């Protein structure tokens, strides 16, 4: 039908325009922020990749408690490669992601013998083993104190152009490029046949197996891809902050990732991103600006409880709900059932 083709084209153009608008906002954003808020923006961009990669894993129906540790694997690997072996930081960043993915591939053999709650606990245990290894072996991991003075991203100085990546605004753009590219790949994977298979395994794993899908292989694939991007996020973090230690990748941090995903919602690609952005802005900017530093954990907890109670499908469900209300309001009281009688 010609109408359908035109509709698709309009939707595609609208989508592309929205994307252009989003990138324009992201490009202007750091110049509207204070210096310390630019620092927060850098960490936020990194956390967007972390939570988005986590969502890919949840597509298969498995929720891990080891994702932050996997991010740590990428951070430690990238830091050690740059610091000890002199590998250039951009290369070490990619290798860090690769090592995180390889670690996930190895872990998948014991972990994917479990499902659901057992997988959750198993992933926690695996993560703790990795963290204990970092603590136990001072050489090369630095023990409990971890690694510091990690090589920063090399500055760019070509005469007319000088970029110091210690400056948060510069690192923000670097991280934005890396994270945008990563999100594009993650999005394409989800929209591909592989992504559909992940969904199938989530909702009907027995049925998927009955039609010849190797669920173990696909779960492993999701875990490995998610871990690669978590590793990249870890590398971005390590080369920005300049220090990593086992505590940074502990279960406390993992709880934050879970909260971002739950509050944002995991049904859509943008759900967890919405969660991390909204909660970070509330936690790091709004509550601090209001002088509520010490009350933040309390308020954070309250937000989680309230969102679970009143937005069980996450922030991502808010826009459709608002749209639905607007639609009903426009179509008059008859549609809402009001005014009857």
């Amino acid at each position, binding site marked *: 039908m010609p109408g359908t083709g035109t509709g698709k084209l309009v939707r595609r153009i609208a989508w592309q325009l929205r994307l252009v608008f989003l990138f324009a906002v992201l490009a202007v954003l750091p110049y509207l922020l204070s210096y310390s808020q630019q620092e927060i923006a850098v960490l936020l961009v990194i956390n967007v990749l972390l939570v988005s990669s986590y969502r890919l894993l949840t597509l298969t129906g498995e929720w891990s408690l080891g994702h932050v540790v996997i991010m740590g694997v990428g951070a430690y690997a990238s830091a050690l490669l740059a610091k000890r072996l002199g590998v250039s930081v951009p290369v070490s960043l990619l290798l860090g992601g690769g090592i995180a993915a390889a670690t996930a591939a190895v872990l998948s053999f014991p972990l994917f013998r479990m499902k659901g709650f057992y997988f959750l606990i198993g992933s926690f245990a695996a993560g703790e083993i990795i963290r204990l290894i970092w603590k136990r072996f001072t050489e090369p991991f630095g023990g409990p104190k971890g690694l510091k003075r990690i090589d920063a991203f090399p500055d760019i100085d070509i005469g007319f152009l000088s970029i110091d990546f210690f400056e948060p605004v510069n690192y923000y753009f670097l991280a934005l490029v890396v994270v945008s590219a990563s999100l594009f790949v993650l999005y394409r994977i989800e929209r591909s046949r592989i992504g559909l298979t992940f969904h199938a395994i989530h909702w009907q794993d027995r049925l998927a197996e009955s039609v010849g899908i190797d669920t173990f292989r696909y779960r492993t694939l999701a875990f490995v891809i998610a871990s690669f991007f978590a590793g990249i996020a870890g590398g971005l973090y390590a080369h920005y902050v300049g220090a990593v230690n086992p505590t940074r990748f502990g279960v406390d941090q993992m709880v934050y990732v879970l909260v971002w995903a739950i509050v944002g919602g995991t049904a859509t690609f943008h759900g967890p991103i919405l969660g991390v952005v909204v909660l970070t802005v509330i936690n*790091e900017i709004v509550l601090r600006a209001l002088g509520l530093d010490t009350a933040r954990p309390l308020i954070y907890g309250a937000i989680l409880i309230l969102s679970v109670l009143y937005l069980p499908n996450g922030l991502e469900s808010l826009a459709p709900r608002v749209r639905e209300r607007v639609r009903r309001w426009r179509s008059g009281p008859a549609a809402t059932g009001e005014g009857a009688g």
Partner: protein
Amino acid sequence: MSRKSLDRKISRRKFLGTSAASGAALAAMSTGLSRVSFADSHTIKIGFLAPLTGPVAAWGKPGLDGCLIWADWVNSKGGVDIGGQSYNIEFIGYDNEYDAAKARTGATKLIKEDGVKFVMMLGGDTWPGVQEIAAREGMLFSTLLPSDLTPDSTTLLAPCEVHPIYNVTGVEWLAENKPDLKTAAMCAQDDALGKPSVATYLAAFEAAGIEMVDAPLFFDPATTDFAPVMTRLLAANPDILCLDTCYADYVHPLCEQAFQQGYQGQIISCTADFYQNIIEKTSEEFMEGFIFQFPDFDDPALNSEGVNFVNPNEFYAEYAKRYGASAWSAVSWEYASIMDLWADAASSAGSAEPAAVLEAMKADGTGKHAFGTADWWGTELFGIDNALVGNWPVVVIEGGKATIKEFRSIPAWWDQHKDLMIKHMTDLGQMWNQRG
């Protein structure tokens, strides 16, 4: 559309409008308040960058509370005289949650946006995130954990607490006063705070002729069940139970477990924060003789000549009045005592600029430490003489109350036993040139 529904929609609009207006007014108010604060040119801002929430908050929040008392007192007397002009002091706190990245964000905010002249930190895991900013901005920082000191961090000072070196004074006192106690067992959380402290206790025990019944037991910081830890510690029947530098969240359950498992021997620990709560959970008899290193500041011994902390007893009384006596912790006075040192240095320098204050602080190689005049020291252990070391009190719980038994000299112990300290620090990879 019915009238009822129209009213409801209008009221919603009104509500949204009112909310937006309120939000804008609130924002304007907060901006206005900030401007008032910035407009006062006779105020010097000091940064307080420490964990105010989370598991390490016990070593941050009470310190900020103490600083607020210090500022109120100093400001009520006209402020700090710098270059013939009196300046009020205002503390700007930032909760770094004991995280390096948040510490970095906090440091940039304090330095670049709040315009502070000095930043006090707990240090530890958070310092590496700040180190580069400190170097670039030339900002003066203080830490409570001198294991952060390195030769390339020239603007970082440990002017109050030279953790964990002062722990030697407790062991030395114990060996002299209870010479029949000859064996010890020790545990610590496996982290950057626990390990150097273990090395220090090992050196102190060895110097005192006290034998370890077993290797130190390192437990994971995520540990919540301390029954197995204590069972293992007590299995070898030690005369002394050493709790190293455990966080308050560990010291309390460890003491409870020792009590429940029938331990009746000597306990020594770096800290006993909120010890009244431990007594409530165990008994006064059980805690009798507990040795640690941090006095309550209502102790009369702090009024002795040589103690530089200003009005310690009154400070403690005010702290107890504002926050409750049970809120007193090891750090309640420490950051305030660093401020005494800073104010003296700024006054003598005639400037609050970080470089001038640093130079004035270290002018003759000595400084007025809270517990007496002390030396800037540390090259052999930290690679730089940026730690202020002198006397430190040995505190014992007697009749349910912390009591200073004696002030002992850390440098005197060091002169006699430094080889032991360096050996154990090296064995645990804690020397400055072994870190990171």
